[in-house]
């Protein structure tokens, strides 16, 4: 495996984990502030544990028992779906057709919802445990983390670097966790939209590469094709954003859209 593709792998996993964990942190902090820190932190820790077990339970058998070419086509397709969706959103956001992701707005919305629920008489247990706070924190970390798990398993399994991919994800979780503990609030200063664009570009590059490689296409330069594909998607991103900005300008107020997909 070439150094440049290993670097792209680490950056893709670290970036994806960083933005997803920043989003999860917003929900954990909202749950902690409105329902109590103990339950929120326990919920977050339980979700991280379940996600770790998922990586081991799904990733290790995939590497050992699935034929490598079939594995590469499947993970390539998965990475392509994730990457194209992330890029699509990035282009719509940069061109003003979709509202930028806003952690402050999400935090305020979640705190308001949880406080209303608390006022309505949702009870805490005698030991200070709050099932709602636990559930919100667990769900936030688990749902945001599932995408990270898929990316770790896909990139790690396709390149036989599951350990390295998991390490990059853990590093991002630790960084966000430490910063979150220090500042005790959501991290709205993290340039999430920019990082998401970069990760979308890297996932699309790996996706196209592994689909082609698994199907039997011989990439010129082998692994060196990955940085070339990164360059290609960078050009596509800037071209499409410029196209939408100039030829198809956005309405005065950007479209605010809820998304269930990555």
């Amino acid at each position: 495996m070439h150094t440049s593709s290993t670097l792209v792998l680490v950056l893709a996993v670290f970036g994806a984990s960083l933005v997803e964990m920043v989003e999860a942190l917003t929900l954990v902090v909202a749950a902690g502030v409105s329902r109590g820190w103990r339950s929120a932190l326990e919920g977050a820790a339980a979700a991280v544990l379940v996600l770790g077990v998922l990586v081991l339970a799904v990733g290790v058998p995939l590497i050992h028992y699935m034929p490598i070419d079939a594995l590469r086509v499947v993970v390539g397709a998965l990475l392509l779906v994730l990457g194209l969706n992330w890029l699509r959103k990035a282009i719509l956001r940069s061109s003003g057709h979709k509202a930028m992701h806003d952690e402050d707005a999400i935090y305020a919305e979640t705190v308001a919802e949880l406080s209303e629920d608390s006022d309505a008489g949702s009870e805490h247990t005698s030991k200070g445990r709050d099932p709602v706070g636990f559930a919100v924190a667990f769900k936030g970390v688990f749902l945001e983390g599932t995408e990270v798990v898929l990316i770790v398993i896909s990139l790690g399994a396709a390149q036989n670097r599951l350990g390295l991919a998991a390490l990059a994800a853990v590093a991002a979780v630790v960084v966000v966790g430490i910063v979150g503990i220090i500042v005790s609030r959501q991290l709205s200063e993290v340039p999430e939209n920019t990082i998401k664009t970069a990760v979308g570009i890297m996932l699309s590059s790996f996706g196209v590469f592994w689909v082609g490689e698994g199907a039997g296409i011989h990439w010129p330069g082998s692994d060196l094709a990955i940085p070339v594909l990164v360059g290609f998607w960078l050009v596509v991103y800037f071209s499409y954003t410029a196209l939408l900005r100039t030829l198809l300008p956005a309405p005065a107020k950007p479209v605010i859209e809820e998304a269930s997909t990555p």
Partner: protein
Amino acid sequence: MTAAIARAARWLGRFLWDFIIGDTPEVALATGAIVAIAFLLAGSEWLGAILLPLLAAGFLLASTLRGRKRAPSRSARS
């Protein structure tokens, strides 16, 4: 026990559907098409290496233009 497993399976199915298909089924379809074309180009070098990224970029443009026309909905989360 069986009911719990069935509930978990339904949840997993719904989660995967939302996760992979969600509100952009065209991206999943495009990916399926790219996989099929990749197999048709198996054994090639430059042709596949040039055509595959171009196809993906074409599908991305179509999906982005479709996303531009969508009606607004509820929340600022993503």
